[in-house]
């Protein structure tokens, strides 16, 4: 009898297991509650797999980009705006995974551990989000790209605010084309090329090579390079865009001379080039605040001089992510401190009080940054001409990313050296030919719009 009673203590053991399980369950709710509550199967938020009830999304000027009205999602009034901001705002089904609708879904649903989604249920809306995005400028960028696909990103390099983020092709969420998933015209439409795209950079990569040269070759400004239209590396040939004759380092950048930069790259060697690129964020998983970026890749060949030469001028196996490159522009423009482009201005009461702290994505030696700034300024004054960017005090570099089987991408990266217009820009116009064409013109038009509408 006594023994039997003692054995009853097995119940304590059972209770302990049970309580341990309850604690584990509660911990799981704390850890994963947000993810679970914001699952697309949650019919408090989603209806038929699309967002129905959630907070509104506004642009920096208070323009409504998306909001819930009577259990339905409504969007910006103008069709052109809807298309221009599609990828930043995101679709309501979460197919565009970097869109605000999906990425900030727990903010939009107003989920928190204490109340769950009670505010959504009682008030019919979660937290509103105000973006740094200027929808008017996005529209200008979208229209400036014209027929071309590609991406335009503009950022305030002093604060990190992302003002423009456009990706093409795009579509109108309120009038979804029937052939969206089948037509070639819409290939890659669900990809926000600004943060999820990578491109062969072409000559804008010479900025990175120049940075490496400034830091590793003390007498780089004394050097001259011979350009005969092509450069024999010993195991192959690098072809130039022209025959530049004898050029200095600055002239080489102005002229975007492949021969000179191939020589510089080979002299620097794969290791140093790679070290510089990686110090600027290449080959690294980066986040523009909460937005994951696709890795920029730079793996110059150590065995083939020709391949190394091509890598140093932005061809071969080099790829850059537009938003990452924008952050590099921010670093050059802002004395070495490259803020992460941030699309969010406010996400509810707490951030309104604290404000969103800027985050540094790219760091550069301030001295290197100021030298690069001077070089990029000389590109505009000595080569492209101020007339291409009237009044902007532009610094920048064009690029023509050569492709194997299609027309080149037209690329431009730069910034305004004006205290009252601290904007950096990256434009990629796919299959649009020379960088000084579509890309530079698009950059100019967007920045002019922002200058006019300050």
């Amino acid at each position, binding site marked *: *009898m006594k*023994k*039997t*009673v003692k*054995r*009853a*203590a*097995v*119940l*304590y053991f*059972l*209770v302990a*297991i*049970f*309580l341990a*399980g*309850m604690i*584990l*369950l*509660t911990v*799981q*709710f704390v850890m*994963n*509650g*947000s993810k*679970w*509550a914001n*699952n697309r*199967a*949650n*019919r*408090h938020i989603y209806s038929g797999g699309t967002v129905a009830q959630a907070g509104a999304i506004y642009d920096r000027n208070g323009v409504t980009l998306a909001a819930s009205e009577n259990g339905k999602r409504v969007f910006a009034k103008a069709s052109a705006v809807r298309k221009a901001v599609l990828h930043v705002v995101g679709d309501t089904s979460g197919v565009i995974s970097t869109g605000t609708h999906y990425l900030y879904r727990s903010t939009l649903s107003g*989920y*928190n*551990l*204490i*109340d*769950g*989604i*009670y505010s959504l*249920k009682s008030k019919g809306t979660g937290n509103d989000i105000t973006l740094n995005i200027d929808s008017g400028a996005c529209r200008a960028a979208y229209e400036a790209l014209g027929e071309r696909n590609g991406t335009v990103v503009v950022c305030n390099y002093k604060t990190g605010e992302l003002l423009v983020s456009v990706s093409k092709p795009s579509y109108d969420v309120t009038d979804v084309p029937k052939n969206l998933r089948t037509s070639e015209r819409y290939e890659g439409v669900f990809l926000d090329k600004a943060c999820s795209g990578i491109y062969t950079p072409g000559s804008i990569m010479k900025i990175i090579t120049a940075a490496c040269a400034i830091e590793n070759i003390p007498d780089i400004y004394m050097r001259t390079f011979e350009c005969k239209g092509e450069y024999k590396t010993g195991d192959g040939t690098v072809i130039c865009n022209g025959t530049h004759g004898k050029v200095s380092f600055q002239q080489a950048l102005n002229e975007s001379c492949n021969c000179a930069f191939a020589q510089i790259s080979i002299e620097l060697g794969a290791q140093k080039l790679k070290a510089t690129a990686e110090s600027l964020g290449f080959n690294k998983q980066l986040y523009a605040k909460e937005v994951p970026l696709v890795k920029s890749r730079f793996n110059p060949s150590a065995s083939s001089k020709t391949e190394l030469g091509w890598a140093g001028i932005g061809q071969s196996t080099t790829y850059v992510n537009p938003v990452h490159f924008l952050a590099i522009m921010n670093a050059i423009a802002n004395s070495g401190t490259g803020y992460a482009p941030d699309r969010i201005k406010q996400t509810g009461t707490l951030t309104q009080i604290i404000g969103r702290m800027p985050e540094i994505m790219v760091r550069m030696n301030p001295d290197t940054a100021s030298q690069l700034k001077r070089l990029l300024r000389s590109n505009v004054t000595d080569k492209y001409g101020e007339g291409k960017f009237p009044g902007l005090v532009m610094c920048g570099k064009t690029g023509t990313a050569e492709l194997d089987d299609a027309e080149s991408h037209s690329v431009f990266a730069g910034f305004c050296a004006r205290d009252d217009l601290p904007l950096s820009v990256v434009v990629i116009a796919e299959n649009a030919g020379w960088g000084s064409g579509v890309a530079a013109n698009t950059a100019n038009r967007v920045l002019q719009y922002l200058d006019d509408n300050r």
Partner: protein
Amino acid sequence: MAKQPKENRFRQTTVMVLISLFQAICACEVILYQKEASNSLIYIFAGYIAAEWLYMMFGVIITGNDYFELEAIAFFLSGIGLTVCATISEDYALKQVIAIGLGLAVYLVLLLLIKNIRVAMFLRYPAAVASLILLAVNLVMAKVTNGALNWITLGSFSFQPSELVKVAFVLVGAVSLDKLLSNVNLIRYIAFCLACVGALFLMRDFGTALIFFFTFILIAYMRSGDVRTIALICTAALMGALLIIYFKPYVANRFSAYRHVWENMDTTGYQQTRVLIYSSSGGLFGLGLGEGKLRDVFAASTDLVFGLICEEMGLITAIAVCVSFAFIAVFALRAAKGAKSSFYAIASVAASGMILFQLMLNVFGITDLLPLTGVTLPFVSRGGSSVICSWGLLAYIKAAGAPFKLPSPDVDMSRKAKKGGTAA
């Protein structure tokens, strides 16, 4: 029996007042939520609360003592179940309140019967025979009704025999092992257990089969205290289970979603993922009765009721429900320690172990911490058989209960529950 101190009686009344208040708030919320004022719901809730107080006042006549901590917990849990039913339909609420009434009746009758150990001894044969007949009938009928294998339907009335057999199973086990007179007795008992578990396996009610097996182990341990033998039995059972899985792969398929519910969220993981999604939507205080979406999922008020409570009444109330069960176990343990005979001690431990094990299978099953087996949450889940069985099992714990001190945390628990409910 010693008279209990005055202080305890006072606390008991306080607890009952708090529970009634909680239930009244739930009732108001449910009734106000209705589009048209429903008189019958008012009667149901008023009747339920009145019944609680009547029991508190006159229950002493049958139970012979007047501490009602155990019943208070059961009333609290049943009340939550009733509230959930009432938010779905008047019909469910009526059925549930009748089931609770029947449960209370079974509880009292059983208590009267087993108070005399000789009656208990005598009862084991009819109980065992009736159980086997019920399960056999179930097996035959199930073939006819196809699909819902563990149900017997008689006209408009349907019930789960396995639930009733649970009550008998504890009695048979506790009595048989209390007085193991001969090897014949032991063999008969083992045969009975095998028959029960086997029948449940054939009905594909693996969850209940597991509960029976667990209870068997628990009783065997209580009787023998031989951990090695228990380990042997478990190993044998495990090997048996592996053999079954090998020969009948559908058994394993039933549990294939375990720990992979999100990959199968629209098929085999449907219920579990919805429980997690909507439970987390409710936060600590819930979205309000009737405001949830889990209720649209199959079995929301039966197997998934824990998730429904999380979503609509909040995590705090759900945890209060779980903690209540832990208290039942603590009561059972103390009751066993003061029991007059080892029969009561074994029955008390077996009954509360069974309840606790079923609770774990249910709560952890629907939240994917354990494989989903489709068992109900005792006292709370909608369904007559389940409620009656829960109350029946409670009788064993009560019967063992010689006077023991009232644990004070009971009061705190109820307050917590009330807070959760008010905010809901």
